[in-house]
């Protein structure tokens, strides 16, 4: 087939990481310390290609509003069920590419240092490359089946990477949990895809040579009355199920905190910046469907904002530094879904982008902290590290401020856009809860900073003298990530609701915005917009101040007694938060205990009834044989009696029956 240069580059984007995986898997073991020698350069080249494509798409506008669409070949030519390898690069894809490839590349470089002592690092790099391939496939896919395949591959990569240290029981269990919970969401997702196909008969997202795509046909079907509104809502909700699973929203959020069993680069890449964003990306991509189903949007917003406050409340009491960040991720993902639900698609994607950078920064930073205190993850055993690991400290401080949403760092812009749109589109409850979560975010982030870096040192005395800054392969990505955390908001997010990011994403979401009847007024600082901004910034600052007051800053140490008093005052909430609101216990009860009971009952049935029948037939045959064998007495007279009786029977039968 003939491919243009750009199409070839897109294909290379996919092929290179896959080849990197293959080569690393095959010869990685023999490379010993240089196991990264194949994976990391592959990623750097991939990043360069991706940046070139992004430049073409976003800055030069080479592909126009519709983006680049091409087909690499036919996959399933089964009559009506026709699936091709369709790929698309439009503005939304480009934005995602920036996030995915940049953070992916930085994580690869970081892993050189982080995994330097791990004997299985060749596997790690192979899996990382495989993950990059899956994620790129997901972002570039232009039809449902290919997307679903990439969805599953990403889940598989996540399983492999969470359970990387497979001889740790907790890691293996966490990997299994992640995969299973994901599967639950994927079930709904698959049903949704099936529903789409039975409704419109095609899987392609947009128009191809084969005809119009789902995003044109489905709204048309609704307008023309071919499908009812409740069917549209149903399809949207089923597709949302997949997003709930993959992006760890309530009630399928239970896998993300446990996924922290994986190495920190994995947490940074997969569970902060890329994989968990797949759900957000998909809903944004499917905005023509969702904008036609307002009730589904309400559900999305509700689940999103509920997850946000739920996760933030749990983050208050966690002791493991990575768990706090995991719950923070859950909370911010909730924000993104809330943004999608209220119709602020571009704002949600913007938040996705900024969050990817500063959460990735925070995770990598935490990895650096853990590395420096020799694999201690409990924050209660840290403290007073800010002078000893300065680069890590300052970059993490930047990340925390960005996450809390203090202007003019990146998080403020994106979070504020979501909250502003919520308020303006009439979702008052979402706005209120969002503001509360902003306060909570500031508080728990500075609790983390205070316990980890400030105050007096609770580090294990044996470890204390050995604390040192991480190698340059680990600190360089931190510095590189701090830059977008600082500047990205101003660069593409100002003025709010009409910044550069909105101009880029406008062609994608124009139809949805129109359907929903959202009018983008000019940004007016003196009016409602300004008020909302000030309220948002004030909430964030309030949270930060509370956090610093309780937990310290620089030399100021934690106010232990005040913290104790606060804890005692809110004892029931404290207990609920520590117990993660008992969701894990609930799942255990329903699925493990009760499910186990059902499984055991069925096993009993299988052993007793089914096997019993089969074995019984065998036993019956044996016993019958044993019984009939008794006829063989070895005595001639018994046989003669048999002959006589048989003869008599035949004769009588002949005489009386036949004649």
């Amino acid at each position, binding site marked *: 087939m003939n491919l243009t240069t750009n199409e070839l580059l897109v294909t290379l984007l996919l092929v290179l990481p896959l080849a990197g995986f293959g080569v690393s898997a095959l010869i990685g073991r023999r490379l010993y310390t240089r196991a990264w020698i194949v994976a990391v350069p592959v990623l750097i080249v991939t990043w360069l290609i991706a940046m070139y494509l992004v430049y073409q798409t976003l800055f030069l506008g080479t592909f126009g509003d519709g983006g680049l669409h091409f087909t690499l070949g036919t996959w399933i030519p089964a009559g009506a069920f026709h699936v091709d390898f369709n790929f698309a690069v439009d503005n939304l894809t480009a934005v995602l590419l920036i996030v995915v490839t940049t953070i992916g590349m930085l994580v690869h470089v970081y892993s050189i240092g982080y995994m330097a002592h791990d004997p299985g690092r060749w596997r790690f790099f192979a899996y990382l490359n495989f993950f990059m391939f899956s994620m790129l496939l997901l972002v570039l896919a232009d039809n449902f089946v290919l997307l679903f395949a990439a969805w599953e591959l990403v889940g598989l990569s996540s399983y492999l990477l969470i359970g990387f240290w497979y001889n740790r029981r907790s890691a293996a269990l966490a990997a299994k949990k992640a995969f299973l919970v994901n599967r639950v969401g994927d079930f709904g997702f698959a049903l949704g895809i099936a529903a789409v196909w039975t409704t419109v008969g095609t899987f392609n997202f947009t128009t191809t040579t084969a005809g119009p795509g789902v995003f044109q046909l489905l709204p048309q079907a609704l307008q023309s009355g071919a499908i009812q509104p409740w069917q549209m809502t149903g399809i949207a909700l089923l597709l949302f199920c997949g997003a709930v699973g993959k992006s760890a929203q309530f009630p399928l959020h239970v896998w993300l905190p446990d996924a922290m069993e994986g190495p920190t680069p994995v947490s940074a890449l997969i569970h902060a910046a890329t994989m968990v964003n797949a759900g957000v990306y998909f809903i944004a991509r499917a905005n023509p469907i969702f904008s036609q189903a307002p009730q589904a949007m309400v559900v999305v917003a509700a689940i999103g904002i509920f997850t946000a406050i739920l996760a933030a409340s749990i983050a208050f009491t966690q002791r493991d530094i990575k768990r706090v960040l995991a719950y923070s991720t859950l909370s911010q993902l909730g924000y993104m879904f809330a943004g999608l639900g209220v119709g602020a698609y571009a704002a949600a994607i913007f938040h996705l982008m900024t969050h990817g950078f500063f959460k990735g920064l925070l995770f990598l930073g935490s990895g650096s902290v853990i590395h420096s205190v020799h694999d201690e993850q409990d924050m209660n055993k840290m403290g007073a590290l800010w002078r000893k690991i300065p680069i890590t400290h300052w970059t993490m401080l930047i990340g925390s401020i960005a996450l809390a949403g203090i202007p003019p760092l990146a998080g403020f812009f994106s979070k504020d856009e979501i909250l502003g749109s919520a308020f303006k589109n009439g979702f008052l409850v979402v706005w209120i809860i969002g503001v509360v979560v902003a306060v909570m975010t500031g508080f728990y982030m500075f609790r983390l900073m205070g316990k980890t870096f400030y105050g007096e040192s609770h580090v294990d005395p044996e470890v204390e003298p050995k604390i040192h800054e991480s190698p340059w392969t680990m600190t360089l990505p931190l510095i590189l990530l701090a830059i977008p955390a600082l500047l990205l908001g101003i660069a593409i997010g100002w003025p709010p609701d009409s910044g550069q990011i909105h101009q880029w994403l406008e062609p994608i979401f124009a139809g949805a915005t129109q359907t929903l009847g959202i009018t983008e007024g000019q940004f007016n600082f003196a009016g409602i917009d300004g008020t909302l901004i000030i309220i948002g910034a004030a909430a964030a600052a309030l949270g930060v101040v509370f956090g610093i007051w309780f937990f310290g800053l620089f030399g100021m140490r934690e106010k232990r007694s005040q913290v104790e008093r606060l804890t005692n005052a809110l004892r029931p909430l404290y207990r609920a938060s520590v117990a993660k609101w008992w969701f894990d216990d609930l799942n255990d009860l329903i699925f493990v205990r009760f499910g186990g009971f059902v499984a055991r009952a069925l096993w009993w049935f299988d052993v007793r009834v089914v096997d019993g029948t089969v074995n019984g037939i065998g036993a019956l045959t044996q016993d019958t044989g044993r019984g009939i064998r008794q006829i*063989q*007495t*070895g*005595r*001639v*007279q018994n046989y*003669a*009696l048999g002959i*006589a009786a048989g003869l008599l029977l035949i004769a009588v039968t002949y005489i009386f029956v036949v004649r």
Partner: protein
Amino acid sequence: MSHSLDAYLILSGLLFSIGVFGFLARRNAIAMLMSIELMLNAVNLAAIAFGAFTPSLQAHAALIALLVMAVAAAEATVGLAIVIAIYRNRRTPLVDEYASMRD
């Protein structure tokens, strides 16, 4: 009565049944052989009876009876020789002790 074929045939049947009973029920091997002789004689009687009431068959019937008699003699000879031989080995003439073909 002696002029009806039925009487002879019924008599033959009775003798045959007695022979069957003796063959199936007795434990002693020689008794079984004696029952066999009874059965053979019953057959002879039936043949002769048919011959008596069918003139064209009379000589045939007599001949058949003679031949059967000869065969019966041969069979009795060999059977008794076998019984004696087994008796020498097992020390008993009772057939329900000759059960080595069972297992």
